[in-house]
């Protein structure tokens, strides 16, 4: 699938303030480094269970997070580390959760697939494909009801567009004109099966937009400036009562679907083509080309790395959660009692 820029907002990097562009860079670097670290920690057997890395999809998370207000809502999938970090959750709290430590976002109770940081607007990561789309619509309805001008953003994969909840959520959001953005990260694959093999249309999200009276939008999801601009426009529209948007971001995951997957099913040339379009490398080059000093970027990178190293050590040093915590917070009273 080649990148089309058909329906996306014009490329407007020059309109984006430098501070924002540096932030977009920093967010992408942070995600990139942290995801790589997560991978290293697997190899050291410090991350148990599964994990779905977003390496290669940094630009989507950075672009959205930079455009969102702090009180906007994010709803993520199991592949949600990038969005969680981008909204401001610390690397310590994310890595700690992957490692099942006390310092983790949910103290090990949720795990890699369920990152949640309400303080940062991350209203959960949902591991049932598509389940969070109606939930995001509900949060948007609540924002509309309460008149807060908050917007809910739901991030999901190409594969999620073929599940019933996608259809129901989009229709409801359109009928109720909800302030919600449905952002599809089309990375061309569900788990191991190409999305094109199981989908009736070429663009699994955008080609369905008309079913909900929405505009068709396909954008280059590896270009943080383009994502940022598209997100900003959709956020503005949502905040001003214009209803939902559906944005399909073309991107690619650099690693396998999950920890267990060596991703051998992908044609070598495809992988190579996409690695050439690495969002972090491209963005770095663009910043340099538009006059930002190499030293500035190197400084950001080394600061992120230093922070990451500290976070890694702190996470390793963090205790495992007390076994009693397995029995807490079933109920709002903090407990789990189902009887007297």
């Amino acid at each position: 699938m080649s990148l089309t820029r058909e329906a996306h907002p014009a490329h407007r990097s020059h309109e984006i303030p430098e501070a924002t562009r540096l932030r977009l860079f920093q967010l992408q670097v942070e995600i990139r480094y942290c995801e790589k670290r997560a991978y290293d920690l697997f190899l050291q057997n410090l991350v148990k269970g599964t994990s779905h890395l977003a390496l290669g999809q940094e630009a989507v998370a950075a672009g959205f997070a930079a455009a969102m207000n702090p009180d906007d809502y994010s709803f993520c999938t199991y592949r949600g580390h990038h969005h969680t970090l981008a909204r401001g959750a610390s690397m310590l709290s994310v890595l700690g959760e992957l490692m099942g430590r006390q310092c983790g976002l949910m103290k090990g109770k949720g795990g890699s697939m369920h990152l949640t940081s309400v303080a940062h607007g991350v209203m959960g990561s949902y591991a049932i494909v598509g389940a969070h789309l109606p939930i995001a619509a509900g949060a948007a309805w609540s924002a509309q009801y309460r008149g807060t001008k908050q917007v809910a953003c739901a991030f999901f994969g190409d594969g999620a567009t073929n599940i019933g909840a996608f259809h129901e959520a989009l229709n409801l959001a359109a009928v109720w004109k909800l302030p919600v953005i449905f952002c599809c990260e089309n990375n061309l694959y569900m788990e191991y099966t190409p999305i094109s093999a199981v989908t009736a249309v070429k663009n699994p999200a955008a080609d369905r937009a008309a079913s909900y009276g929405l505009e068709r939008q396909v954008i280059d999801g590896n270009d943080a400036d383009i994502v940022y601009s598209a997100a900003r426009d959709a956020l503005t529209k949502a905040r001003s009562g214009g209803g939902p948007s559906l944005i399909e971001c073309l991107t690619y995951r650099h690693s396998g679907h999950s920890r267990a997957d060596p991703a051998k099913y992908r044609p070598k040339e495809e992988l190579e083509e996409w690695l050439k379009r690495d969002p972090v490398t491209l963005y770095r080059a663009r910043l340099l080309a538009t006059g930002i000093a190499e030293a500035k970027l190197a400084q950001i990178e080394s600061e992120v790395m230093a922070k990451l190293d500290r976070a890694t050590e702190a996470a390793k040093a963090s205790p495992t959660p007390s076994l009693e915590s397995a029995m807490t917070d079933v109920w709002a009273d903090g407990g789990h009692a189902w009887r007297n």
Partner: protein
Amino acid sequence: MAQLSYRDAVAAAIAQEMRRDERVVLFGEDTAAAGGVFKTTVGLFEEFGPRRVKDTPISELAILGAAMGAAMTGLRPVAEIMFSDFLACCWDYVANEIAKTRYMSDGQISLPLVIRTANGAGSRFGAQHSQSVENWAMSVPGLKVVAPSSPADAKGLLAAAIRDPDPVVFFEHKSLLANKAEVPEGEHVEPLGKAKVLREGGDITVIALAAMVPRALKAAETLAADHGISATVIDVRSLVPLDAKTLLAESARTGRVFTVEENPRLCGWGAEIASVIQEEIFDALKGPIVRITTPHVPLPAADQLEDAVVPSVARIVAEVRRTLDSRRAA
């Protein structure tokens, strides 16, 4: 006290809570202008308007998903799933999302919401519109499960469910909707998690829920009048939280326990309660706990067939007698 039907009591509870708390919203299929297909939400659209009382498309996933998203961001949604059978269409939300999110988020997310649904047989609607599925909800950690048998409880327990900080699945029994009885006027809230002893008797303890409660009571009258058997009858009311204390105490008092369930036989709430009782007061039991249930078959549509499978007053009486006789003989 006013005479109110069970269906009007449901509407009265929602109105009471909507007046009290601006965060309470109601929605579902045909719940607004039409007042609900069971007329359990009549008058709410007129009183609270289209912002707070909404119609949805036929989208059960979206209904419960939206309820969940709204609940975690400050509203107190009351979502209607028209028939409890349709919980199957959105079971992912009930079992995987709503029930588990507080726990998975380590308490960061609260879900104060109510799923109201019309449950049970008696309307000759056939296998896909007549099920009793309280046990489905009971089997999932993280859900409170309530099923009132009287108009007063319909009002008081629904009000409590709406105020509860946790998700509650609230089963309204179709065959009870037209029943009228005294309902306290003014604010009425009945705490969740309390069983109600409706009748005291020394020989046997009968534990029932929802539409089986009036049948158990009638059976108790017959047993007393015709067979000299004196029965305690308990309305469980709330399966989660479960008032195990009352159930255990009343079971120990007679040592002869019967559960009366409308759901099909296997893995019903009766199995759970029977297991708890035999485990905790084994020595007080004078004989086995007997479950009176719908057999393990889907529900047939024809009236005679439906009546043949759902526990009836006559069957409760017969089962109790058969059990006591066989124990006496043994």
